[in-house]
């Protein structure tokens, strides 16, 4: 008999997926309970993720063999420190988002409600699978599950703009999925296995073959569309601007799941054989990351729509995480993982606050923020806390993670990238201070005084905003998981 804790990796993935399948049925039979079922399922999922993280922290990684067949033939799930911490992040944020969402869903109409929750739960299952799987083909399948749910979530409003945004996302995302599948095929032909760890053992001998290098390039290119790395981020602004409130939140998490896949590709599969002579990948990725940071920030400065601005800001943050990953040092990896967490918490806070303002007061453009601190003080306070962390003002969560990445850059002598991060902080401050100036120092031009958001939304926004600041003070809590994660990925053990 296998202890129950060993089943946690599969439970974390299958609970949202099976609930997603049940949801439409419930939607047909008992229309009112859909939200309740989604909240219960995600709460159970959060409990499982917490248990998993606790277990992994104490006992080390869990390896789970689906259908009892061991790795060379069977599919393996590995809950290592990286997977466990990301799984916890995904469960926690989606639970908070879905609680917030249950207040705002009427905007979609009754008919779409159950489909909407189905897509969210499927996306959660896909993300949990991506961060936990150790099988390359399984990774592709889970990326597809996530991507298809995301296309639906972007287009679900069904009006012209959101359909167009969803179609754009579908075209770019499908091209990315195809590249990932071809790359997986190339690596499978070369190594004869799909298990990532086994591939990592075989690849050093054949790293110079064109098939392997081609497969690697295809996988990197395909994953770049999924994580929205600089030239391939173009689907993001439209997808965020016209979708319902939850889509940017789920998408922020989906990007992180894609980044985990990228980390595993580089460090688990290619880690042992990757060196500057065979593949100049680290320098290419660093360059892409730095360009993403600068260009996305400059474009964000020019946006008039708040959600488009936040989308470009996400593009820049993805650049920072890729920069941290590309250094191939434990300091860089730790910085990248910490930035994944701080960026997710702060950006989700910003998206939810922006959505509360949109629903309550129809605020969409940055000029509309005039006098907002006076009329919606708590929502604006939460927004400001999130923004402080995204800018990286000292002592906030975002500051700590940026410092880690910048330190890593200095540690390997690439001062230019530390400079890029500093310059990026100034640019970010510039576009958020524009909002602060409107909100705090300019009078409102509206004829009617706006009402504050209902208190449950305020509570959620303030919790997320507080968490994004407190992460800076309690940075050791996530670091306790992140340090061993980086150690395992770099081959040094815990």
């Amino acid at each position: 008999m296998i202890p129950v804790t060993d089943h946690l990796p599969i439970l974390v993935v299958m609970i949202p997926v099976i609930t997603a399948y049940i949801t439409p049925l419930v939607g047909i039979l008992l229309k009112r309970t859909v939200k309740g079922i989604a909240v219960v399922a995600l709460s159970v999922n959060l409990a499982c993720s917490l248990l998993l993280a606790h277990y992994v922290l104490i006992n080390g990684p869990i390896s789970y063999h689906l259908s009892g067949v061991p790795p060379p033939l069977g599919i393996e799930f590995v809950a290592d420190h990286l997977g466990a911490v990301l799984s916890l992040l995904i469960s926690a944020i989606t639970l908070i988002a879905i609680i917030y969402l249950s207040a705002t869903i009427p905007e979609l109409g009754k008919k779409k409600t159950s489909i909407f929750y189905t897509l969210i739960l499927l996306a959660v299952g896909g993300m949990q699978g991506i961060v936990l799987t150790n099988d390359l083909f399984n990774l592709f399948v889970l990326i597809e599950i996530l991507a298809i749910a995301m296309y639906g979530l972007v287009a679900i409003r069904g009006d012209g703009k959101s359909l167009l945004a969803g179609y754009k996302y579908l075209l770019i995302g499908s091209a990315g999925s195809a590249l990932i599948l071809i790359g997986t095929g190339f690596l499978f032909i070369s190594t004869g296995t799909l298990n990532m760890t086994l591939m990592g053992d075989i690849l050093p001998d054949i790293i110079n073959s064109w098939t392997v290098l081609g497969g690697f390039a295809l996988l990197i290119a395909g994953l770049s569309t999924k994580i929205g790395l600089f030239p391939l981020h173009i689907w993001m602004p439209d997808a965020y601007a016209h979708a319902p409130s939850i889509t940017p939140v789920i998408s922020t998490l989906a990007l992180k799941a894609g980044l985990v896949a990228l980390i595993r590709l580089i460090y688990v599969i290619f880690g042992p054989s990757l060196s500057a002579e065979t593949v100049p990948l680290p320098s290419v990725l660093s360059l892409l990351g730095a360009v993403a940071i600068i260009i996305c920030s400059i474009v964000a400065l020019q946006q008039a729509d708040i959600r488009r601005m936040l989308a470009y800001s996400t593009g820049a943050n993805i650049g920072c995480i890729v920069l941290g990953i590309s250094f191939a040092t434990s300091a860089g990896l730790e910085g990248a993982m910490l930035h994944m967490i701080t960026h997710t918490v702060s950006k989700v806070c910003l998206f939810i606050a922006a959505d509360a303002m949109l629903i309550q007061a129809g605020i969409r453009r940055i000029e509309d923020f005039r006098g907002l601190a006076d009329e919606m003080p708590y929502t604006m306070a939460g927004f400001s806390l999130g923004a402080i962390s995204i800018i990286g003002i000292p002592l906030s969560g975002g500051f700590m993670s940026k410092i880690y990445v910048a330190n890593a850059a200095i540690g390997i002598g690439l001062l230019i990238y530390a400079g890029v991060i500093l310059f990026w902080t100034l640019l970010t401050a510039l576009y958020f201070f524009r909002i602060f100036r409107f909100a705090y120092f300019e009078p409102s031009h509206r004829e009617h005084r706006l009402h504050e958001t209902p208190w449950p939304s305020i509570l959620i926004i303030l919790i997320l905003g507080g968490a994004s600041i407190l992460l800076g003070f309690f940075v050791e809590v996530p670091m306790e998981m992140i340090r061993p994660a980086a150690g395992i990925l770099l081959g040094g053990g815990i």
Partner: protein
Amino acid sequence: MTRSDIIVRTIARLMVPFLLLFGAYILLHGHLGAGGGFQAGIIFTSALILAAIGRSRIEFRSQPAGSKLWILGVSGAVLFGVTGFLGIVSGGFYLQYSLLPLPFPVETIHAIMITIVEIGIGIAVSGMICLVFLTITGRGE
């Protein structure tokens, strides 16, 4: 209806029973060779779509079809998920059938359970693709 329609209709009607039989073969052959629930579901659905194109008597139409297909698709997927959990309940891993307390040899248990899973997948795929067809042609929901 023009006269040339008769070719489409006749061929489509002729194909339907053979496609259904082929689908059943692919479904049951799934765990031995190429095939399985997904492919079988697609073949079943293509038979139904051909029937719809040929306007034969098993055409599906009208409002209730939408929600019935939802139920079909959902129950297939749930069948798959729940069968997987039987493995955990019997003391093994997810989707592991060898430990199920059934009075057959292990190979027979595998064959039975995999067939159930494949049927679940087939039902789910068939229901969902039918729904996609109905939605595209404006008869779904």
